[in-house]
């Protein structure tokens, strides 16, 4: 089986190790990973700020890279998967050809944990893990994509690690894309509350499926002087192979 990997802009610039872990994981399960070169951004920052034309430009570029064939498109980001799945078709509705492409692409997109559990059944194998892991349930992943159980199923496959739930795991971490730049005081207040939840869980590692959230959470933990490790689920799983 072959997939096309969408790295996402945050992974590309700030967290390439998440991309590498994703590739390692997929290859471990016998998946051929195609990485269309020239990737940029799914367009979320512009879309969420109300800039339809600009986000449509990003969408058109995405389609130009990913429209060929019908391999699954996998991405280690719930919010990017949601953007492509839920907003691309509507964003490009005025162009009959592009909107058809968008529909087709939307049908092929998977967030990574969704793909690992739903298609590869990766959780049926054991991974090595250690320490106490808590999980932040990102907003778009949970509410837009409805991916609630898959990450927990994968964490449970990390043998040797103990899952410790945090209070209010599904409460927004305060990242919200442009929100963190427009209303930083609120964003920091929310990431501080999230940090408090993480510390209350007793975990030494916090994981999730969205780099934007994890980045904001890391800032919140740092401000509290915490040494809790922040790692994308892809990294924990790849390390546990």
């Amino acid at each position, binding site marked *: 089986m072959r997939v096309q990997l969408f*790295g996402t*802009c945050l*992974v*590309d*610039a*700030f*967290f*390439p*190790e998440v*991309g*590498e872990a994703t*590739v390692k994981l997929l290859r471990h399960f016998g998946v051929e990973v195609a990485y269309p*070169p020239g*990737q*940029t*951004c799914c*367009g979320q*920052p*512009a*879309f*969420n*700020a*109300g*800039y*339809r*034309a*600009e*986000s449509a*430009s*990003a969408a*058109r*570029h995405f389609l130009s890279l990913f429209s060929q064939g019908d391999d699954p498109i996998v991405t280690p980001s719930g919010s990017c998967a949601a953007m492509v799945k839920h907003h691309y078709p509507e964003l490009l509705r005025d162009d009959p050809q592009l909107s058809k492409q968008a529909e087709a692409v939307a049908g092929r997109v998977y967030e990574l944990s969704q793909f690992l559990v739903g298609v590869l059944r990766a959780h049926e194998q054991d991974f090595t893990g250690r320490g106490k892991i808590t999980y932040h349930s990102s*907003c*778009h992943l949970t*509410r*837009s994509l409805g991916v609630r159980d898959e990450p927990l199923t994968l964490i449970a496959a990390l043998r040797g690690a103990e899952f410790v739930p945090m209070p209010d795991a*599904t*409460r*927004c971490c*305060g*990242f*919200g*894309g*442009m*929100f*963190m*730049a*427009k*209303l*930083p*005081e*609120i*964003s*920091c*207040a*929310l990431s501080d509350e999230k940090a408090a939840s993480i510390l209350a869980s007793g975990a030494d590692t916090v994981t999730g499926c969205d780099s934007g959230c994890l*980045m*904001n959470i*890391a*800032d919140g933990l740092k401000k509290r002087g915490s040494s809790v490790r922040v790692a994308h689920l892809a990294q924990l799983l790849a390390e546990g192979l």
Partner: protein
Amino acid sequence: MSDHQTSLDFRANAARAIKNASLRGALRNATDTFGDRRGSAFEVIPDLDELRERASTIRLEVLDNLPAYLDQFTAAATRAGAKVHRAADGAEARGMIAALLKERGAKMVAKGKSMVSEEIHLNAHLEEAGIEVVETDLGEYIIQLEHETPSHIIVPAIHKTRQQVGRLFADRLGVPYSEDPLELTKIARQVLRDKFFAADAGISGANFAFAESGSLVLFTNEGNGRMVTTIPPLHIVILSVEKLLPSLRELPTFIRLLPRSATGQAITSYVSIITGARKAEELTGAKELHIVLLDNGRSEILAGACREMLKCIRCGACMNVCPVYRTVGGHAYGWTYPGPMGLVLTNLLTGMKKSHPLVDASTLCGACVEVCPVKIPLVELILKLRQRRVEEGYSSSGTNLGMKMFARAATVPGLFNWGERMARIFWPVVSRLGGKDVAGRLPRPADRPFHERMK
């Protein structure tokens, strides 16, 4: 006295509110409690999604046929002995209510809770006309004494601690200081009891109006709603035009949804259904009932792309789960309605020119969408407003330029990668320029971006 309006500098309001530790504690307590109680309360409902879908359908059907339902309501209410007035805007509503009260020689009015009366600053107008207005809902009474505006649509004084209320009553009512809520409630009961009987008129809102029978319904817990609507000889009701339901047969759906969504109660202590004025030989009800149906911008909204906002039944569930509301409270939103429903409705009713900063007051987390009993697509509406903000020219030129550059970079990989390289090389400068509040919270860009590792 005036209902002071905080400016629409939401960010500054928010920053101020965040520093207020007692406010944040009160908000955390309230929103956590209501969130938990709502969850427990809905456990007994076998299919909540189906119930919400039904409520949404009923509300949409009313909105799709609003003029006809309003006419039907007017005819039925009139037949039942009420006088129905249509007010195009706040000024007209205030004017007709003041004129009616003056005509009757009313000096003091006992008032039940009404968000729409806050929306049009009714109290201030009546006070200016020499009519004393006494709020009788405990939370509203507290903020009236304090000369404040409500900070939540269900529990208006949620931002006040018991000590603050105790101090307030001691100072303003001349009673001994107590911070026991039960004691404070008893004091309020005694003070307000006299007011109910002395009032020349009662003014209330209504949760819904029913077209078929011309009825109104009030959901209350304290009993003040029942007092205000039956003790004084004149009862004036003000409600906005979209709060209609076809008939009392639709009421059960909303009895099941509204109290649970608002406070986690299965039902409020009292559900009062009023149909017309007191008839001959009856012993219950105001002798005169006047119903003011207020438009104040609703018709315009109904004709627009954000019309689903008018499904709102004012339960407050959305603000109870909103991470932004929980952090800053209601006053930061600068107007009558806070939280997710507030930031949408405020823009729709007061215009983007004044209120557009509010559209940023959301992380688009979607928690509100999950709890709205009438399935208002709040995230979608916020996105629509953000688009409108750009289209109508209220976004900053800096952001516009930044987005144009983003669009360029997103379509030209070479440019995108060059941007990454520049940010990486000049990170100390970039992060300082971007400020410690924003860029300072980002990590340093990686030495080798992912795409280079995938060559």
